[in-house]
């Protein structure tokens, strides 16, 4: 690799690292408003069809939004707030399924599927796999044939 290009990559790495560092420092702690918004996006409006309370215009959604804001301001943790609404409306009020139990599958299965897929592609690519070398050998006669055809066409 030539020197100036290598330097350019190193410089780029530095620039990006500094920019990311500055950008991450600029992120302050989550404000109460931000927390309220995040929690409302993860709680389903109990009277609507598949909308979160953040998205819904129903009266009950507005009420829950206000309730969440009150609880956030009162210093409750996210988990406490989720548990409160779960207790009130049931499990399906939470739009983010639990990581444990049967609902954990919805988190795990895609990871397993992607890992298997990557493994499959990797195996297929490796020599001897479906997409890797298939053991065919090219004889000198084959090469001659090809170059004759190509040479003939090039010359015409």
């Amino acid at each position: 690799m030539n020197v100036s290009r290598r330097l350019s990559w190193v410089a780029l790495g530095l620039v990006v690292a500094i920019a990311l560092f500055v950008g991450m420092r600029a992120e302050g702690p989550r404000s109460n408003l931000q927390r309220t918004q995040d929690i409302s996006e993860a709680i389903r409006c109990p009277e609507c069809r598949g909308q979160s309370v953040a998205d819904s215009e129903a009266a009950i959604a507005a009420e829950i939004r206000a309730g969440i804001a009150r609880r956030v301001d009162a210093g409750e943790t996210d988990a406490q707030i989720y548990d409160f609404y779960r207790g009130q409306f049931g499990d399906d009020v939470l739009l983010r399924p639990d990581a444990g139990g049967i609902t954990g599958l919805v988190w795990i299965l895609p990871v397993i599927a992607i890992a298997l897929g990557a493994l499959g592609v990797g195996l297929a690519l490796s020599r001897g796999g479906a997409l890797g070398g298939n053991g065919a050998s090219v004889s000198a006669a084959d090469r001659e044939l090809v170059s004759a055809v190509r040479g003939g066409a090039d010359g015409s």
Partner: protein
Amino acid sequence: MNSSLGLAGVALGTASSAVGIIVLAVALRTRNRALMQQGRTMALLAFFGALFATVIMERALITRDFTVDYVSQVGSSRTPALYNFAALWSSLEGSILLWVLVLSGLVALTAVRFRKRLDDPLVGWALLTMFVVSLFFFGLLLGPANPFTQVTVPPGFDGPGPDPLLQNHPLAMVHPPMLYLGYVGFTVPFAFAIAALVTGRVGEGWLLETRRWTLVAWGFLTLGIVLGAWWSYEVLGWGGYWAWDPVENASILPWFTATAFIHSVMIQERRGMLRVWNLSLVCATFALTILGTFLTRSGVIESVHAFSGGSIGPLLLGFFAAITLVTVGLIGWRGDQLRSPGRIDSPLSREGAFLANNLIFAAFAFVILLGTVFPLLVEAYDGRAVSVGEPYFNRMTMPLGMLLLFLMAVAPVLPWRKAGTELLSKRLQWPAWGGGLAVVLAVLLGAYGLAPLIAFGLAGFAAGSALRQVVLSTRRQGFRGFLGRTNGGMIVHLGIIIIAVAFAASSSYSREAEFTLEPGQTANFAGYDVTYEGIEVEEFPEKRLTRAQVRINGGQVYEPAISNFAFTGRAIGEPSVRTSITGDVFLTLLRVPEDLEGPAAIRVITQPLVPWLWLGGLITGFGTLLSLFPGRRRDPLRPTSEPIELDQSESADPGDPSRSPGREASGTNPDANADPDGATQPDRSVDGTRAPIGVRFQAVTEPGAPS
């Protein structure tokens, strides 16, 4: 009268489709070439039937003929003319009618387009497959989704009109037809895939026949999805454009498999590989459009979009199962002929990148399908009700989206067959600086947080890569280089990148708050002064409109409103958006104040870069259009499946006149690194020759080739 006429149209379509199936089946069996020509007549007749039925339905809607069942459900004398016209696709039966119209139009178009080749069994079987699909949908119109059922209504009856949400914004009129053109459009590549399997002509022929059809369908689907997002942004009062609602998921699922197909098809065209995978992707795309229709039209899943069911659900599910079985069966039957002749030499190559791309798109589709049906699965398993919503989808798809952006950056510069690090370092240098600049610029503009900054960086990187390709091909060929699939694809990439940036920015940095303001009072929020000035009420035949006047930053007045629809008693919010290229201020009136002189509750949402979504959609559509033009033909004499010397390339003499062109891309010697794009050797290829694209020298690598 309208009932009988409309039904006659549907019956004509059904009969023509059925006759078409019989005629083609007999003709294909007896190899009767003259009879095969009759397929076209049947296709035109079926289209005429569907067109006639649609015209009759529009006539019934326009004349408010409430004796037609569908009109009595969605028609109303109070609905404005345009929304009344669009009421055709505002509910279940009418939307199936629109589906049938588009489908039979496509069948007719296919029959006309291939009129000179109707006696070719590949075309015959494709047409036959399309007739089977048509027959199914015509059958739905005759049976469970019959819009023309005659009903008796009391004198003076007036219907409810279309769903209030569908008569609030003109986008509600264009979005569904676009989406249907996309959905239904995939019937053509599906039909040719089936035909290829049945006839055993599983090579690249069917792919090339359907290349443009697939692209057009993909373009319409993309536009339909973007327009749907725009509609929900403008109409629904929550300031969002994508909620991972089951119906939205149903529309994006075939988009992912189709996008995967559009990419992996290039490996097959170039190298003859991945035949099974490509056939599966095409069939999966079509099957997913049917599954999506089932999910959203059968009422099994709750959604704001879903129409209530009826008996159509089991039929759609059965059709989906039949498609899957037939496809899997055919692929199994033809298994031995689907073995690919080529091989992938190195993961670090264009082929390798396309494979990775396909893996990610498949993962995307899997995550979304799983999340959508998971509540059903859990309920079937132990009766518990659970929800899977936006937080899940956002969390799961974000890393996949990042990976895709990274691939978009690297893949376009990769040569076919094999690349070396030196080559990558050279070609990626400037695109990577594009990414670095994007991060710096974002930080300077006030962006923060690791995930969005990485997304912006990758987007800049990918955009740099796409621009590099555009510059290279236009520098080489002038304006002509702008046309064709290679360049069009890069423009599409740019559109998608813009959408990704808008998605990352608007979801990371949106702020919302609710204010209760007295007339004249001002609230300051996220750098904007929001002044409530007062309220106005206006009466329309179909609704009462309550508009709040809100001034932003002392400038223009915006009017978020609430419509009260008299007939249904529903109140629908009408947000008002101050839009600019850097960001939007989204205002909604939360409720009609009891005292019109008193305070009003107003929700303010600020989101950066939202208009970039629509801009990105536009650019994507433009890129798709460019891709439809025939591209530059590659040199038909450059074999792409000739074996390359994986471990000897370093010692290969670049000056050797007999060296294989495939080896040029091996990338260990800078001089031997002739850019396969032709960037460094502009005049090497014999561009002008219009030799058939299928010319290949695969025989040299085929196992058991005569030696």
